[in-house]
């Protein structure tokens, strides 16, 4: 039978390279497994990876190329600017488009062909905010964020969520991507005397920030979203990561056997431990597989329709790693975790149920 052709457009070079490469590797692993075990409906998956150079202008061209190639689905890009541009191309051609982007705006366009692979910030931030207010008893919060679309989006959303929960952001601290010296931001956070310090940056900056927090002897709880307690950050920050807590949607350290197994397979294949982007890439391919199998044929329109309200259980489709369900906007829902770093390891403190399960 024909192969199912898909294109993966990722940030493989430039500022988004780390995330994009993880996503790509995750996808590659999933596709290899699926093809080895007979493909989807008997058809192999044939993937092309392309690099946006972290540039929306290039991403747009690549999306057009995918459209020209008449692929079944497009994965990526992850940067919110890039996905906004490329998804207007895929939408016009009615091609399903999965993205790792977390910006709220992605699913607010009413595009029936776009699907997330993780929580959008409008899902994760309220959860994080609730935990800070309810469990950490935060009345005041200092927010240290990275000033790019990812960080800015998260900062806007957490600020809003905290307000709704009745807490106040008392220090709103912007930092530049690639920032080296966190002494000023940390000092400012310290002086604000906030109950909790919320850190929302990329991996390296998170590590530097944690080190500076330790150096300046900050004792207030440090909370984050996904990145802050990631494996990479722990590795980079060393001791300084201990005690940091975060709400995470996806983690290779989640107390889920399928996840542990995935981590082992990934590490074997690529020689390092994946971050959440690796999981996104991996699971997204399996979600697509589940969707196609549900439709029973390889048909884009039917697939897109089927994705709305799709629920995939990890029991039936182990590749999705955790139960997941989609709403009609392309947002997904699943369990999430509150973790804390102890002795250089992520430990799950609490499992938060999927929103729909409440």
């Amino acid at each position, binding site marked *: 039978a024909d192969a199912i052709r898909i294109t993966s457009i990722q940030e*493989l070079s430039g500022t988004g390279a780390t995330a994009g490469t993880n996503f790509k590797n995750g996808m590659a692993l999933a596709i290899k497994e699926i093809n080895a075990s007979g493909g989807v409906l008997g058809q192999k998956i044939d993937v092309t990876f392309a690099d946006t150079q972290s540039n929306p202008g290039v991403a747009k061209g690549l999306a057009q190329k995918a459209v*020209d190639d008449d692929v079944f689905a497009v994965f990526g890009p992850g940067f919110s*600017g890039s996905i906004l*541009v490329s998804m207007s191309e895929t939408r016009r051609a009615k091609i399903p488009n999965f993205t790792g982007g977390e910006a709220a705006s992605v699913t607010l366009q009413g595009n029936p062909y776009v699907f997330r692979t993780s929580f959008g910030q409008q899902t994760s931030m309220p959860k994080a905010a609730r935990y800070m207010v309810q469990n950490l008893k935060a009345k005041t919060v200092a927010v240290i964020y990275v000033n790019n*679309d990812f960080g800015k989006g998260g900062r806007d959303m957490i600020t809003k969520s905290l307000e709704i929960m009745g807490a106040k952001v008392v220090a709103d601290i912007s930092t530049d991507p690639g920032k080296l010296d966190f002494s000023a931001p940390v000092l400012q956070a310290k002086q604000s005397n906030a109950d909790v310090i919320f850190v929302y940056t990329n991996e390296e900056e998170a590590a530097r920030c944690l080190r500076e927090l330790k150096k300046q002897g900050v004792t207030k709880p440090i909370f984050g979203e996904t990145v802050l307690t990631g494996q990479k950050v722990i590795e980079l920050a060393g001791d300084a990561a201990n005690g940091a807590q975060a709400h995470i949607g996806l983690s290779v350290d989640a107390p889920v056997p399928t996840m542990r197994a995935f981590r082992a397979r990934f590490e074997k294949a690529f020689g390092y431990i994946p971050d959440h982007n690796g999981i996104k890439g991996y699971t997204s391919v399996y979600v697509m597989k589940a969707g196609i199998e549900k439709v029973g044929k390889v048909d884009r329109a039917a697939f897109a329709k089927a994705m709305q309200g799709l629920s995939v259980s990890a029991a039936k489709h182990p590749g999705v790693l955790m139960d997941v369900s989609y709403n009609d906007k392309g947002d997904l829902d699943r369990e999430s975790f509150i973790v804390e770093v102890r002795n250089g390891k992520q430990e799950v403190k609490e499992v938060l149920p999927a929103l729909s399960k409440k």
Partner: protein
Amino acid sequence: MINRNVIAGAIGLAVLLAVPPFLKSYGIYLFSYWLVYVIANMGLNLTVGYAGQKSLGHAAFFGIGAYTVAILMKAGISFWIGLPLAMAGCFAIGLVLGFPALRVQTIYLAFATLGFNTAVWLVMRNEEGLTGGTYGINGIGRPEFFGLSLEGSLAFYYLILGATILLGALMWGLLRSPWGKAFTALRDNPIRAESLGINVQAYTLLAFAIGAMYAGIAGALFASLVDFIEPGPFAIGTSFMMYLMLVVGGPGYFLGPLLGSAVGVLLPEWLRFAQAWYLFIFGVAVVLLMLWLPDGLLSLPDRLKARRQAREASAARAAAAARVGGAQ
């Protein structure tokens, strides 16, 4: 020689006119993207290649043009009003940026312009109310041309092509006039130029301003082409890339930007088959190109010509020497 240029130009034009309708949308997009950079680099060629002002801030004007049009179009103002405003804005700011050039030269000027670019980028990123900050501006849309919709990618391509040809012709005229010589003189030896009554100030400022205006036009077209802008593509990295394209193509050669932009825009696309390594190969290719033709791709015909002329001159000199005869 002029003949050869004309023939090359005619062939090139025919390709640009006739090929895109046979391409799919990705191909058309790449052609459009390339021509946008050609326009921007024509401006840079004037500033750097002809007038010798080391500018590393060209992407700032590219961005100013793009943001002007995007902001205005978002406010419901026509592209055709936005474009002249973008041009005027870039021209004016270009004039202002020319002033440091009157004080400092070479690398110091390069870094001053680099600083300017960083400053513009900071404004784009931080003035969220105006520029959308890091979120950028989405759904900019494309203009109409006398009632003709340019929404389609091919139609918009022809608009860009038309602009390229028009701006190219204007630049050609400018460079052939005494202005062209004045710019070149300025690049070669400003002290001598000054003492010959060449208004170094005026020409320096104009070299910046006109170059900036071209970048502004390119930026305006870019915003409409991609439909989305954010500060990223207008950071100093792009200025470096533009400089790279200019030098690889051949600074001070009229068609340099055409080739240089092809290397900068099309070559990486073509190299994609190399997968993860394609940018590595691109970087190596740039190094090799420089080693082969340090004065740019277009210096190749010149080099051959110079060699031929040198041989002819040698022969003439040998003949003259024979006539002189002498005491040997």
